């Protein structure tokens, strides 16, 4: 079995992805709290197209009518905090590197779906959810950039 070589990453990636992940975690905790407290203290301006309550209480806010989207987001960010931590980046572990890639890219599918749901089905935008979407997009870009701009192996002369 071939031995996996450590994957190097630019140092800036450590200090970009972790704060982003912590921000995503914070918003997810807030949205989950609001979900289970009946959105009583959900702070969000309401206009014809911006209405957090419309989005967070829509039938699409539950996956298969049972799993709140907010909880799925929270579970993802709890795991991402470890995967995107500076220690994980520093380890150079190929397994963690692939996991980071998966954590950066795969949730973008969910983001695209949720933006579609907000724009086409619910017809309203939730600012907090949009905050999570932006965080996830920046994470995706950071992970992709870190891979594309990874330090190259020295060329033998």
């Amino acid at each position, binding site marked *: 079995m071939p031995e996996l070589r450590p994957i190097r990453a630019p140092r800036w990636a450590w200090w970009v992805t972790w704060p982003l992940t912590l921000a995503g975690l914070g918003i997810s905790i807030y949205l989950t709290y609001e979900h289970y407290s*009946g959105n*009583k203290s959900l702070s969000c301006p309401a206009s*014809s197209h911006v209405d957090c*309550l419309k989005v967070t*209480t829509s039938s699409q806010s539950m996956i298969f009518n049972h799993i709140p989207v907010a909880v799925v987001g929270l579970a993802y960010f709890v795991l991402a905090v470890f995967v995107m931590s500076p220690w994980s980046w520093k380890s150079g572990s190929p397994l963690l590197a692939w996991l980071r890639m998966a954590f950066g890219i795969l949730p973008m599918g969910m983001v695209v779906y949720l*933006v579609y749901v907000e724009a086409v*089905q619910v017809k309203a935008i939730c600012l907090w959810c949009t905050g999570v979407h932006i965080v996830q997009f920046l994470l995706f870009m950071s992970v992709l950039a870190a891979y*594309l701009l990874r330090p*190259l192996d020295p060329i033998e002369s």
Partner: protein
Amino acid sequence: MGRETNKQRRQAQAQSVREKAAAARAVQQRSDQRRRAVVILSSVVALAVVGVLIAVIAINSSGSKDTSKGTAASQSILDQVTSIPRTVSDPIGAGPVVSTPESVTGGTPLDANGKPTLLFIGAEFCPFCAVERWSVIDALSKFGTFSGLQQIVSSEDKIGTFSFKNATYTSKYLNFDGKEQADQNRKELQKLTSVELAQWSKYVGPGQSGPGYPFMDFNGTYVSPGTMLDPTPFKGKTATEIAAALNDPTTKISQSINGAANVITAAVCKITNNKPASACTPAVTSLQARFAPYGSSSG
């Protein structure tokens, strides 16, 4: 000695050339890597910008098409309003309702498909209708199932509620004909049939000079030509807040919605011959004694 020196010099020169070539290759590789990264990352950003633009256009176009349509009702809110335990609703009785259905003689039966029909005429802007729809949904869920309910906020008093405009109701005991006659801007939304219009115009509530909202006709046998509830406790409340209060009988919201739902259930039981027994419990049917002839009662 001199030949060795020349050989060393040649080796050093070759080494220097190799190092320069390697350095040049490294610079080239680095440059290629950056170029590739810029192309890929800027393509992703461009795709994201296009996606956001499409989303913005989708939201704006849907908004200009029909602003009164609302959004699909939240399943969790529907679950809350259709599953209030009897232990909560029965002790409330009629609650704080300000009027009860009135019996009419010589009314036009609205039967269809061999089943009696409950006609509801409301308006999406109307706060009284906003409140009463909660009770209608609560009551009728004991006889059948709603689908296609839309969640809206009444433009007057900003009360979270539902619209019957695109709703369908399935029951083996009765039909439900829910009409939203006007939209959020008081413009006509759904046309009434001649029979509906005749019934609505015929029975006018106390103090009203003409047909008003909400109006209910229980198959031409009972009518409720005005509001049953005071909307004051509901002003500015979201659907989530209202739903959260339903199971707490100490709240005005729970007393109002459950009280009116019990009264509506009692009137529906009248036209379904008190079927099914699970809906027409003694606690509910005892409220039928409060139904006075049209024009003689005020609650």
